[in-house]
């Protein structure tokens, strides 16, 4: 490239008037080895710019956090739902209205059977009342007997005293 043109571009460059394309030409010129000696200071500058552009950011960036809190809250909600359903299941009361036809039949059958059993039991209880009466009579007899023995005790005392 003609040195004149480079010098012209450098003047524009110093005044901040070069376009990116023109600066690219300058970079290309200073990247090569044979640079005019009086332009050495520019070469140092452009070389520094080129070197600096190689620098890279190598550190890792931890990007999680949000996702994990979401999962945590989902599990909390799931546990809450489970406990609620368990609680309601335990507390549920079944009424006659909830039963279907077959269940109602079975229920009625059971009630009838139990009624039968209880009526038989009542019959047994009435026959027991006879025994109850008998024991009452026995008690009365025992009382009379006691009176008799009391009487004989006093009678013996009288006889002994004589």
């Amino acid at each position, binding site marked *: 490239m003609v040195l004149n043109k480079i010098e012209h571009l450098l003047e524009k*460059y*110093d*005044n*901040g*008037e070069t*376009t*990116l394309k023109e*600066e690219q030409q300058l970079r290309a010129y200073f990247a090569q080895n044979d640079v005019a*000696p*009086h*332009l*050495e*200071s*520019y070469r*140092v*500058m452009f*070389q*520094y*710019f080129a*070197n*600096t*552009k190689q*620098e*890279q*950011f190598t*550190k890792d*960036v*931890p*990007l999680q956090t*949000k996702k994990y809190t979401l999962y945590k809250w989902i599990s909390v909600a799931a546990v809450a739902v489970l406990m609620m359903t368990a609680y309601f299941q335990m507390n549920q009361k079944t009424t006659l209205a909830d039963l279907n036809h077959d269940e109602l039949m079975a229920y009625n059958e059971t009630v009838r059977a139990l009624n039968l059993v209880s009526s038989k039991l009542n019959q047994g209880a009435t026959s027991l009342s006879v025994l109850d009466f008998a024991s009452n009579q026995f008690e009365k007899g025992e009382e009379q007997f006691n009176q008799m023995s009391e009487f004989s005790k006093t009678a013996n005392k009288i006889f002994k005293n004589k």
Partner: protein
Amino acid sequence: MTQTDFVKLVMPFKDKVFRLAKRLLVSNEEAEDATQEILMKLWTNKKQIEAYKNVEAFSMTMTKNFCLDRLKSKQAQNLKIVHSNYQDNNASLQKQLELNDSVDWVSKIIEQLPEQQKIILQLRDIEQYDFEEIAEMLDMNQTAIRVALSRARKTIREQLTNTHSYGIK
């Protein structure tokens, strides 16, 4: 937006964010922390990001603001004191090293520039953004950017010429 989408979106400019942060904060560790912070902020606001037309320009603006805030904060002031102490104690030794490596010397010169010129020089001469994009990132008009850039370029060359007598031959 999934993690892979985000990485794909961020990949092309994460190095640019890092280099701008390093330009302003100087220290490598500080720049890494800043970049990490910026990327985390982008990730947590990924819903809003999708609405932006130019995520890259937005991120560069964020980086600039974040780094300038860092510089103003107390921690960074401590850092600065340590840094300048170091320079004072080893001035002569460092100068010798820098004479040997004039390319590194450029970064020392840029360090002395005002922050705005640093940012503009970084965005233009290293990252090669066009003036329109830089104007959007910095919320400045293009003429002001050209003026600042011209000043920065001239300062660097002047200093290089003074120190090494380049271009005098």
